[in-house]
């Protein structure tokens, strides 16, 4: 089985819109939304949820005031300043390390496992999809990313499907790192701006760091030709394959408003031919 992970470094480059367009072209695949922090793919896929499961991340400390003698040891040990002078734990600050729990001489601190989100297996008009929703202000997004990818792989194996297309998170930190391990290839969707170039270089370095082979496409390439060329040059310097360019076009937003992928919305156009060509190049690269 092959897994293509679509990432971007910078947000808002058109990662999810293009990933959804590929979903409408690809056959025999499972879709996975690993941007669990701000998942948007479902807005285009209109998933029919078949299974939903709680995601249990870490634990949070809770002080039992009946047992607490206010000795202050927990406050001394806590490196997150998560325990107030009134001996209440700020659940947003609590890292879930459990040090206070283990050292409390009165055993006055409980450490219940938190439900930090939900994950789903759904059917869509383009095939099965695994997606998730991380709770607001929660931690452990990397864990949830790893979980949805693992479940998507299981689902593909069960249904004898040979491709997994994963919508990855922005940035280069914990959730992105969790979306790269074991991937067959990443596609970086870049935009031709100084920020786009800067951020693309950092994700290119990240892909190289984790030894995942990389491809690059430039979205909205006609907004700035110089930056488009700079991105493609940098891609080649980082041994990444340039798979194509997509022009700027308001149909991306219009199709999103209709809840459709861009290829369902447009007829024959430059958008269709450019995305089809990119998908063909990706297929060749993945040897599908």
């Amino acid at each position, binding site marked *: 089985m092959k897994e293509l992970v679509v990432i*971007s*470094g*910078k*947000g*808002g*480059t058109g990662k*999810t819109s293009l990933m959804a367009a590929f979903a409408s072209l690809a056959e025999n695949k499972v879709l996975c939304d690993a941007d669990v*922090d*701000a998942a*948007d793919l479902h*807005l285009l896929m209109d998933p029919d949820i078949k299974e939903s499961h709680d995601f249990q991340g*870490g*634990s949070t400390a809770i002080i039992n005031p009946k047992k607490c003698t206010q000795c202050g040891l927990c406050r001394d*040990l806590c*490196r997150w300043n998560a325990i107030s002078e009134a001996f209440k734990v700020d659940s*947003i600050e609590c*890292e*879930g*390390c*459990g*040090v206070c729990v*283990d*050292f409390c001489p009165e055993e006055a601190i409980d450490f219940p496992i938190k439900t930090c989100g939900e994950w789903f297996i759904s059917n869509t008009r383009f095939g099965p999809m695994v997606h998730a929703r*991380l709770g*607001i*202000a*929660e*931690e452990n*997004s*990397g864990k949830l990313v790893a979980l949805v990818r693992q479940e998507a792989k299981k689902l593909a194996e069960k249904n004898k499907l040979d491709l997994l297309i994963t919508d990855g*998170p*922005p*940035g*280069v*930190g*914990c959730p*992105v*790192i969790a979306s790269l391990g074991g991937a067959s290839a990443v596609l970086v969707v870049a*935009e*031709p*701006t*100084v*920020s*786009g170039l*800067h*951020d693309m270089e*950092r994700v290119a*370095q*990240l892909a190289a*760091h*984790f030894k995942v082979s990389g491809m690059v496409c430039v979205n909205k390439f006609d*907004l*700035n030709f110089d*930056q488009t060329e700079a991105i493609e040059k940098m891609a080649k310097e980082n041994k990444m394959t340039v798979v194509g360019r997509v022009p700027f076009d*308001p149909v991306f*937003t219009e199709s*999103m*408003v209709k*809840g459709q992928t861009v290829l369902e919305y447009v007829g024959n156009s430059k958008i269709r031919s450019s995305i089809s060509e990119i998908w063909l190049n990706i297929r060749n690269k993945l040897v599908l």
Partner: protein
Amino acid sequence: MIISVASGKGGTGKTTVATNLAVSIGSDVQLLDCDVEEPNAHLFINPVIELNQKVYTPVPQIDEEKCNFCKKCAQICRFKAIAVIKETVLIFPELCHSCGGCVEVCPEKAITETGRELGVIEIGHRNNLAFAHGRLRIGEAMSPPLIREVRSYTRSNQLTIIDAPPGTSCPVIAAMKGADFVLMVTEPTPFGLHDLKLAVEAVKLLEIPRGLVINRSDIGDDGVQTYAKMENLPILMEIPFDRRIAEIYSRGKLIVEEMPEWKEKFIELYRQIEEITSQSE
């Protein structure tokens, strides 16, 4: 006063708003770019950097002479960063959250702490605008401690503008907590609206007053406007889609410098924020 500029969805114009706002105000203001995974503000500000400093987080190291392989360190670690197999202690520094539990629990005092590099902090200025940002090391997973380090450069006697990372989880919380106002930037599309709702819920949890900037305000649909009304979320500024603005941004230039008529609008935006925060005090 601390204004944190956040969005939920990436690419909606946080950095555009944060940089143009900071430059429009001009003096007695500092800009802290806390989007340490992909910091971009410096590309528009072009600050003179005066200080470049590596930032470390503590991780354990074992003195094998003192260790008697009792496994207490591996048992206390909730992050699986220490494993003891027979007479070998394995440390996985990239999994360590720096809680210090292993140091405390070790009966032989065999554990001390060394540093894992999180990234760098750069401090500088452009004219009277003070600037700081963090840059997460490639391969490093944990951004919140580096964000907190950037925020430690907050000068309480000045206006501080924070460019926050996208999303709604721990890095964003680290960039918003303790702010006096959260300026949310969105675009009026289904993705923009969906992620804005999540971001608003996070700001509510922190109980911080908030307002909205709608970027590319004439594309998409009216979902964001309807939601803002329902939530009593004041719309403080609208920036219409303009190919000129997109091109100015693509070249790393500031709107207020290339289209000076925008400077007044950003100053007015600040005036409205001041009014809202003075009422909520």
